[in-house]
């Protein structure tokens, strides 16, 4: 009888010590990692200087319509009549006919400002993030059109599918307090 009681106590003691052991391991893990933690949430963003306009952003997002969209840095734009980001390589006429436009969804809108300047704005719901305009703008223009992750659409996945597919490693994590890496006249 006494022997039974002892063996139960021994098992209970062993279990209790393992219990406390596990708790201390978890506490140790917590303190070790606490120093590495950041208070702000981290979100995904494209570094426009690394992007090579490959077009993967339109296809690899887990959402139906990609959370990556084209953005325009107006201060950098040349406001050209012959915009190589708007018009395809050999346009019939320099106007906004669908046969002349690079954009497959017609999201890049051209409006006349004053002679000889035209303003180019992006209709965000139409943009699919295919980077055709970005490629054109970077090739022969100022590079004022670039892709960015739109955070009002992005679900902030733990592992971004586009980041995995990006050939130039342009995706990085940035703090949510400063979630955009916009092109500027100063840092272009």
């Amino acid at each position, binding site marked *: 009888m006494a022997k039974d009681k002892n063996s139960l106590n021994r098992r209970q003691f062993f279990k209790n010590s*393992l*219990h406390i052991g*596990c*708790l201390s391991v*978890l506490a140790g*893990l*917590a303190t*070790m*990692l*606490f120093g*590495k*933690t*950041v*208070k*702000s*949430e981290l979100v995904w963003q494209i570094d426009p200087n*690394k992007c*090579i306009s*490959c077009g993967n952003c339109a296809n690899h997002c*887990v959402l139906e319509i990609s959370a990556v969209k084209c953005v*325009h*840095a*107006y201060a*950098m*734009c*040349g406001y*050209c*009549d*012959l915009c190589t980001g708007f018009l395809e390589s050999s346009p019939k006429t*320099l106007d906004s006919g669908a046969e002349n436009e690079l954009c497959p969804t017609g999201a890049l809108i051209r409006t006349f*400002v*004053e002679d000889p*300047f035209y*303003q180019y*704005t992006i209709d*965000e719901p139409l943009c699919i993030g295919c980077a055709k305009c970005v490629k054109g703008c*970077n090739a022969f*223009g*100022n*590079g004022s059109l670039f892709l960015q992750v739109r*955070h*009002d*659409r*992005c*679900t*902030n*996945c*733990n*592992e971004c599918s586009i980041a*995995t597919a990006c*050939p*130039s*490693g342009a995706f990085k*994590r940035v703090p*949510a*307090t400063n*979630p955009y890496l*916009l092109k500027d*006249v100063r840092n*272009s």
Partner: protein
Amino acid sequence: MARMFRILIFIAAFFTCSFSAYGVDRISPPEFETGYQMPVTTTGPPRADIYEYIDVVVLLLTLLLAAYFALKLRSRKCLFVLMLFSLAYFGFWRKGCVCSIGALQNIALALFEPDYALPISVLLFLLLPLVSTLFFGRIFCSAICPIGAIQDLVLLKPVSVPSWLESPLRLFAWLYLSLAILLAATGSAFIICRYDPFIAFFRVSGNINMLITGGCFLIVAIFIGRPYCRFLCPYGVILGQLSRLTKWHVTITPDKCVKCRLCEDSCPFGAIQKPTFQWPRRDYNKDKKRLALLLGLLPIMIISLALLAQTTSGWMSQAHPRVKLATEVFLHETTNVKETTDPVLAFRSTGEDPQQLYAQALHIRSQFKTGTFILGAFLGLVIALKLITHALRVPISDYQTEKAACLSCARCFEYCPYEHARLKNKLTSGDDK
């Protein structure tokens, strides 16, 4: 005519400016004469930080509620309602991300990558269920995890898995855990996130492969209870082992067990252990010999699996993007390839020295060599220990839950006559007041 002139000017300007750095000021910004206001680039904000902390608070509250429902109230109905809430909140509202299962990878990366910033909410998402399991059992699995909830919801016609099949199938979860930690720690991939079968349902969006995989899992889950939880979940493996040390675990009977056998087939997850009887002396000797053999086999198993796993380090290291890039660049530099791929083009435009890339890739490869060795050794240890536990005869006196496998779902409670007695007493004592 004016248009032709403009085009010619443009082409001339292009040729003169094309020798400067790429993408910059080929065309000078215009001087507007009319009062034109340049529009501002819009930036939609991400989710406010406060919601992250709200998520953690909701997790804590639901964990405490689940513990109360499972241990104190012993009510399946309450747990079910809480499970529906968790499915709605953590599953469909938060779209299943960040989850505690995936948080394992973030922690693994944070431990091995010096400049990886770990959000504090992710750390808490990992730790809170672990601590709650040490005290209350696997209540996280029963009522909070959205992946478990969606499987539990479709469990309509439970079919029990034979015990000889159940044990080896659980090994897949150990394998998944080791692979996930190895690939996360080396910074290669988050496979738990990538191959999450139900995320397409939570996001209500996904490619056809994800939807079909998720659908297949759900169809299987109609018959075999919680297949992901039992045979794949890497976090569940850790929770299961911690659950064996739990302070207050659910018991089938609120009182004592009279071995009436009514709860025998009540568990759809095969977590109920039957009482054992005295074994004759003859078998005892045979078992001693078997145990001795298995103990001797343990180190052999560890070493052999470690060496076997190390042979896979070559192709497994390809999962790392830098290694994959290095292989591609090497192929392009040393042989004549017809077409340059996008990654190689991008790499060449950065102006980085290929030799540095190769050195980095070799370093990662050596990391994989050590990593796969440890993975193999760990798996060998797990398999050997599993065989040993099967060879050990532990006398069980009552119908009890197998602590590692029991998900604290409270399904078995209503099968117990003592539970019915308790409920009746509660009702009558309530009336007496």
